[in-house]
């Protein structure tokens, strides 16, 4: 990995306003968990798994954080013209993609993992944890790799990466995969649910995991690897166009 590009990318992320929005997003589940603690007693395990960790973290916070980061680490550079300072260097395109992926994933993990762990532990306080929080936390790590890889690929392929990414998250994962069970093999959220289910040991079905844990692990890892491979291939043929 190219450490110069990695550190440059981290500085770029830190300097963008979008990054603030991302940290704002991460606070939401923690606040929801605090409100839940103060409110009426429900089944804590079920609420934590289904509502907090699945509906809020896996469905909204995780994909949106990765979308913001994945599409901006390369896409914003192309948009503002600074990509030329990296591309006009004798550096293998693989190194550029890996450095961008590592930087985006690291920041995504710094946002999503604490949000998952803290909000999960707050919500389940007083009840048996049974590996739910740890299961979802580990699942988000695989989710970060798959989503970030996918969104980086999108940003190398099209200038409308953000829009297409939003459509994937809200239309494909939010609606299509709920309506057509067979499509869950193409949903990173369902890979994560499978992984969380594999690690947790509640003994009862607290959340809906249609895919097995092993399937989830393999598919999430494969999705990340294939996306990065294709992003490198695409970057090797990347054309930088500017108005004459």
């Amino acid at each position: 990995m190219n450490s110069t590009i990695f550190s440059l990318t981290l500085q770029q992320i830190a300097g963008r306003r979008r990054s603030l929005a991302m940290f704002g997003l991460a606070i939401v589940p923690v606040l929801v968990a605090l409100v839940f603690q103060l409110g009426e007693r429900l089944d804590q395990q079920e609420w934590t798994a289904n509502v907090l960790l699945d509906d809020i973290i896996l469905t909204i916070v995780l994909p949106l954080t990765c979308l913001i980061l994945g599409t901006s680490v390369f896409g914003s550079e192309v948009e503002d013209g600074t990509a030329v300072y990296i591309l006009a260097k004798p550096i293998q395109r693989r190194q550029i993609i890996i450095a961008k992926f590592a930087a985006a994933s690291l920041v995504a993990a710094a946002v999503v993992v604490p949000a998952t762990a803290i909000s999960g532990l707050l919500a389940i306080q007083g009840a048996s944890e049974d590996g739910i929080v740890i299961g979802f936390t580990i699942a988000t790590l695989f989710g970060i790799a798959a989503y970030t890889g996918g969104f980086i690929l999108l940003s190398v392929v099209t200038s409308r990466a953000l829009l297409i990414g939003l459509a994937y998250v809200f239309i494909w994962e939010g609606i299509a995969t709920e309506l057509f069970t067979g499509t869950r093999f193409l949903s990173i959220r369902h890979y994560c649910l499978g992984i969380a289910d594999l690690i947790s040991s509640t003994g009862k079905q607290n959340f809906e995991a249609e895919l097995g844990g092993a399937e989830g692990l393999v598919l999430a890892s494969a999705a990340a690897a294939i996306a990065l491979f294709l992003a490198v291939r695409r970057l090797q043929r990347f054309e930088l166009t500017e108005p004459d």
Partner: protein
Amino acid sequence: MSTQLTNTVELINASRWYGNVVAVNDISFSLGPGITGLLGPNGAGKTTILHMMAGFLRPSKGDVRIAGQRAWRNHEMYRDVGLVPEREAIYPFLTGFQFVLTSAKLFGLSDPTAAARKAIHAVDMESAQDRKLDGYSKGMKQRIKVAAAIVHDPHILLLDEPFNGTDPTQRLQMMDLFRKMAADGRTIVFSSHILDEVERIAENVLVIIAGRLAASGDFRAIRRLMTDRPHTFKVRSSDDRRLATALVADQSVFGVELNDDHLTVRTSQYDDFIRVVPRVAKAEDIRLHELLPTDESLESVFSYLVKR
């Protein structure tokens, strides 16, 4: 690889189109050491040509070779090529020194700090090197971009409108730098839509119009073509009719048209004509109100060259 080949930039029947729009049309040339100006109006295809040279655009047809190697999909060629893009965007959170140092590291230099210091010295930016790029003027950004592009001491330097935003002093300094680099045997190609810039620095000129190579070669020869072309002047005087009669007799004039409130005069000898008009007016005791060339835009000069 011989030095001569190392410094060569070649376009071989290169074309580039975007859908149905032809941006560059069947251009061939070969450049060696020295300074070459890519001259043409905005939208002529200069940036597209530079981007093909820089390996950022695949030629739709033909070939672009840098130092004997194909430019497209060849990241290794950047070891010997420096590029200064036209766009002003630059990492706002870095200082000038950090920006050039980052460039040196990305080029994989053994002593990036020393190389960055040397490049910053070459563009005379030491006094501002510790300031954030965000606060740089346009001219300062141009100079620090040049420093980042020459930090690895490339044989070939490609610059897209490098003098944009620079003040006259900065422009002279940059021109001196490029002249020194060219004298050291480097190949420098820069694009510009300003005739004067090209005239002052380029030994060799490629005139690009509507994606085609309209003229190429020594600047003086091209300049002669430009000045010897027919010129049109608008002339207003106290007695346009009498002035028209007197001017028609002069050999520098080959057409006079009498309009409502002015004359339109065509001449093929720009310099002679502007000396003749006051003299004739004085001899005829006519007061001259206005003498204005009507077709001096760069576009009109270029379009004349295309028609030839």
